[in-house]
């Protein structure tokens, strides 16, 4: 006797196929929702900024006069800050990842540290702002300079960089380090010559993505007291500064006073988005170009 009745199966077939199509449509709608929101956002920003992004806007100094205002100061502030964030997070992040993955004994202490790092990645950024205000701005008496802002943002993205670097190290196949140990290499020689070169593309990709998150952060910078208006361009990491997201924030708030500020904010958003786009493209390029296949 057969368990499957051909007639029954045929009868149910249409219903099954319909469910199949419905599920596809549902998942497509879910994707579409995000795409539509993004499209509206970009459309609004582009429309608001049309006619406002010009040479003077990109290279000019900050000003309360909307017609004359430029974002060069904020752009330089953001770039200077990245010059602090990038080396600090790369060195500390990769160093920590190497220790945790390759040296630390697997045990209770290691797993406590590991859990805490993962948790730190989820701490709201404003909390890091308070930390930065307490340690760098006040206790170390730096004031609200680029170095303080950069170090604060470094703390913020350090957990992300560490976790990404750990994953990159874990992805290096064990047979490569075995080959190195098998020839009498020390642990450090194996790390330096085999593991790091193989893991570096993954580490850099993770670090650049984390960096692009830091560039867009506003909350920690407001907390450490970045001023609304600052006319001189920053010339080094010890100067007072403002950054692109701060500029957007203040112009948006003040658009109730001067309507044109909204257009300036939109223009700044475009510049920030282009900057992020360049950074993310670099990350993808590094991933595709240098990732080794085994």
């Amino acid at each position: 006797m057969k368990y499957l009745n051909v007639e029954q199966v045929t009868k149910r077939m249409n219903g099954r196929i319909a469910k199949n199509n419905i599920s596809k449509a549902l998942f497509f709608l879910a994707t579409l929702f995000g795409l539509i929101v993004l499209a509206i956002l970009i459309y609004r920003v582009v429309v608001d900024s049309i006619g406002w992004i010009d040479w003077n806007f990109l290279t000019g100094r900050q000003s309360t006069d909307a017609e004359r205002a430029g974002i060069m100061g904020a752009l330089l502030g953001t770039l200077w800050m990245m010059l602090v964030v990038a080396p600090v997070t790369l060195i500390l992040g990769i160093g920590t990842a190497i220790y945790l993955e390759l040296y630390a004994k697997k045990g209770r202490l290691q797993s406590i540290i590991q859990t805490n790092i993962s948790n730190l990645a989820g701490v709201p950024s404003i909390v890091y702002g308070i930390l930065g205000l307490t340690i760098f701005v006040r206790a170390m008496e730096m004031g609200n300079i680029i170095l303080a802002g950069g170090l604060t943002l470094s703390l913020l993205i350090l957990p992300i960089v560490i976790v990404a670097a750990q994953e990159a190290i874990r992805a290096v196949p064990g047979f490569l380090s075995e080959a190195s140990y098998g020839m009498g290499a020390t642990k450090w020689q194996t790390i330096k010559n085999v593991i790091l070169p193989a893991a570096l593309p993954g580490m850099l990709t993770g670090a650049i993505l984390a960096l692009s998150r830091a560039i867009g952060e506003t909350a920690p910078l407001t907390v450490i007291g970045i001023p609304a208006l600052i006319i001189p361009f920053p010339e080094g990491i010890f100067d007072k500064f403002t950054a692109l997201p701060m500029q957007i924030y203040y112009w948006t708030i003040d658009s109730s006073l001067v309507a044109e500020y909204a257009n300036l904010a939109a223009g700044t958003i475009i510049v920030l988005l282009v900057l992020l786009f360049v950074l993310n493209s670099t990350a993808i390029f590094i991933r595709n170009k240098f990732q080794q296949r085994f």
Partner: protein
Amino acid sequence: MSLLTVKENITMVNNSKTDIASAVHANNQVVFDTKDLNLWYGETHALKDINLQINEKEVTAIIGPSGCGKSTYLKTLNRMVELVPTVRTTGEITYKGQSILDKSFKVENLRTRVGMVFQKPNPFPKSIYDNIAYGPRIHGIRNKKILDEIVEKSLRGAYIWDEVKDRLKENAYGLSGGQQQRLCIARTLAIEPDVILMDEPTSALDPKSTLKIEDLVQELKKDYSIIIVTHNMQQAARISDRTAFFLNGEVVEFDVTDTIFTKPTDNRTEDYISGRFG
């Protein structure tokens, strides 16, 4: 060649077990002497009271079913087994009279004398040249001319020079699996070891590449002591001088290969060789 013809040839040439045993023994020094070796992975007792003497400039094959401890034993000889954190050993292994399980014996020194070829070809994702030069470089050789010489000598030693001499700067992963494995053997030769451990070096290769590696092993034994773990009994019969049969972490039988394959003394050896289990 089938196992049967191998057996017949062996039987024709050598009639007496003791004759060969003493003949082979007389010519050679002991390179590894294992006394009462026990090894645990955590709670698992993986090697039990192993006693083996491995001779210089011979090919010693280790056969046995999966999980019998043969690879573990091989990796104990260059202490690669220590990469597993829970591992614990008792007993003694001496390499040319020096006790190697002693922590004072620097593991880096041991592995420079005792090279290893792995089951799966594992070249570095570097150029062919840099793969071979890796060993000499980590041991401090910087001179470009000397490195060039070592690279050529090692590649010639592994009979792969003619195939790669025009593409030394290319990535090693562009080679075929069999070529990669011979490259890995060449890479091991570059550290000029005394002993080469081979952990199922042909299990990932096609028959043609396998034969090339087997021929290579025959050439290498003139200058090196070779210990090879293999699943392939014909291979053990073809290329080794002595064979150890491992079962459940113990050495069941260790003798001249001809004897193991023609007149094994233990029933379990005979059952395994004739394919009744494993």
